[in-house]
């Protein structure tokens, strides 16, 4: 008997996506990840825009990782034009991204994923049973947002980060305050880890290629080379060597392909690829949650986000200390447009993010290629569904659907963000 399992509008993810699974006599016949987003045509309308405007508009691709888009886009522009920035600017951008990590990871792990583990339909209903965790989650999320506000002026679509620098700086006092809050929040994050340690992770394993950026001197999130779990490492300009895009006939979701199969970007791939660079807090979290690296269980991506949050706590303190040592005197900066190519890859919370541009000598954008993490993950999601299905085929329908939902959600997909996707007619 042919059956179709249609999960329309996967809930608790950003953006609109659906999963269509066709089975025959409990054997999986077909899997399709479909996108229900309208087309926005970012790469088209960015053309002809001034180089200063490009990052400001490009960050609107996605609100949840707007800071990553902003930073990746800005750095791509600066690379194209040979614009140099000083260490304060580098550190402020890092701090901005650390804030985004805290906010985004907490949002996903505790608001969007956690309800599944504790049998709730949403964090709103979970708030009744787990008021303390929900309150802590709010507090941590606010901390991440406040870090973004401190550096970028706003938590969504920052305003003060520009090509060449920042239009305003935080003060020593505000940095001191946020540092103190981060240190205080360690205990809160620890409580979340304690709760997570009691949860049961679904049993699932499938080895795939894990892609992320990589540095030798630190856990790479903002800068680095592109690397695969098989050890293939290239400078980011050569991203196409690793990240291929394939456009399946049924959807305009271009999917990431690598060597003819899907690959996975996100928190778990980063943990797998950068295990030796974890900070003390992250290491402790890792061992507390009992995850052995490398892990091939996609569901571990949720826990990996919490571990990374711990990682970012440590990194943020270092960054703030560095900033506190500088004068933090804001100064005017000027940038001069120039023709050229520039590519940057940042790790957004949900995976590697490519911004690649070509500019004319008038400083107007000629061509853009933007590949968002969720785009890269589509094919891998489908492959995961195929691998998971046999073990859940006998479950009653609602539970089966829930597991499929949870599998997709574990990717922390951001469908609105995948700017190469659109619903087909």
């Amino acid at each position: 008997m042919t059956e179709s399992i249609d999960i329309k509008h996967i809930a608790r993810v950003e953006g609109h996506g659906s999963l269509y699974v066709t089975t025959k006599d409990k054997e999986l016949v077909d899997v399709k990840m479909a996108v229900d987003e309208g087309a926005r045509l970012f790469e088209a309308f960015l053309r002809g825009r001034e180089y200063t405007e490009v990052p400001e508009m490009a960050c609107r691709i996605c609100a949840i990782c707007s800071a990553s888009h902003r930073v990746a886009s800005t750095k791509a522009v600066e690379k194209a034009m040979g614009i140099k920035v000083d260490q304060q600017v580098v550190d402020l951008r890092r701090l901005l991204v650390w804030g985004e990590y805290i906010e985004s990871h907490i949002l996903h792990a505790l608001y969007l994923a956690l309800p599944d583990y504790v049998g709730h339909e949403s964090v709103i209903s979970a708030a009744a049973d787990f008021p303390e965790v929900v309150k802590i989650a709010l507090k941590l999320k606010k901390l991440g947002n406040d870090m973004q506000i401190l550096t970028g002026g706003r938590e969504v679509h920052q305003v003060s980060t520009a090509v060449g620098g920042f239009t305003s700086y935080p003060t020593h006092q505000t940095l001191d305050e946020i540092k103190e809050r981060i240190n205080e929040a360690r205990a809160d994050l620890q409580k979340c880890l304690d709760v997570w340690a009691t949860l049961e992770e679904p049993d699932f394993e499938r080895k795939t290629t894990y892609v992320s950026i990589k540095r030798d001197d630190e856990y790479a999130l903002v800068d680095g080379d592109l690397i695969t779990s098989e050890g293939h490492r290239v400078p980011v300009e050569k991203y196409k060597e690793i990240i291929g895009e394939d456009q399946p006939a049924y959807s305009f979701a271009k999917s990431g392909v690598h060597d003819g199969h899907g690959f996975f970007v996100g928190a778990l791939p980063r943990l797998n690829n950068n295990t030796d660079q974890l900070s003390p807090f992250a290491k402790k979290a890792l061992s507390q949650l009992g995850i052995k690296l490398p892990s091939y269980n996609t569901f571990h991506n949720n826990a990996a986000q919490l571990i990374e949050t711990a990682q970012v706590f440590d990194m943020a303190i270092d960054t703030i200390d560095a900033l506190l040592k500088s004068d933090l005197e804001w100064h005017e900066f000027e940038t001069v447009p120039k023709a050229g190519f520039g590519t940057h890859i940042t790790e957004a919370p949900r995976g590697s993010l490519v911004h690649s541009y070509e500019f004319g000598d008038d400083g107007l954008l000629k061509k853009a290629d933007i590949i968002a993490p969720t785009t890269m993950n589509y094919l891998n999601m489908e492959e995961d569904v195929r691998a998971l299905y046999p073990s859940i085929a006998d479950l009653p329908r609602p539970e089966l659907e829930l597991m499929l939902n949870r599998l997709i959600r574990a990717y922390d997909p951001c469908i609105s963000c995948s700017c190469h996707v659109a619903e087909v007619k």
Partner: protein
Amino acid sequence: MGNNGKPTVGIFGFTGCAGCQLNILNLEDHLLDIISLVDITSWVMAKAENDDGPWDVAFVEGSIAKSTDIERLKKIREKSGVLVAIGACATHGGLPALRNLADTDEWKKEVYGDDYERIDAIDIKPVSHYVKVDYSLPGCPMDKAEFVEAVKALLIGKTPYIPQYSVCGECKAKENVCLLKEGKFCMGPVVQAGCDALCPTYGAACEGCRGPAPEANWAAEVEILKKIGATSEDVKRKFLKYCPSVADMEEFKELEF
């Protein structure tokens, strides 16, 4: 009213970055209070169980970017007592509506390749073009504080208030150094206030994401900007950036750049 006596609320996203919805989640200090006052019965971004209305209040985010969106929007309107458009995409088309001013097919091709015709991409009009909008919260993204104000106002039964003047008024009250006077392209003089002059406060020129202020004196702003060296092209491009639906306004059509 929901079965617990609280007003029912639906939050809906159309095509966009989900930033306005995220900004609701970003109300960390108020979220639990809001949840205690209203019954959010539909919000796909945050909940797995979502009902089919009716809703006392619907918040609608995003651009109406494909033909199927129109039907969905109309259904939401039919089932809602009050409909609030949130964010630039819903109030003025947003960045995606830039295609109205261009050859959409060429753009589709640029992004999706030769098979572009399968992409459903209609010209983007504000939500108010299709259905009655009771209140609009402009901005890219909408302002969190304005959202809270609107929720409170609707709950107690007063009119959600948005200042009826331009960003400069707020900017000056915040004692910012004027960026226009520093020669930067600031749209503050003609843009709808209510953001508390966020960008200029952080040293960045106003980009006009909240759309034109009522009675905006565009002609004067064009003169001001030309004085600091902007070209007609710059002015036109920037005026339309976040709020392309402005191109349909009579005042704009009559404007000489």
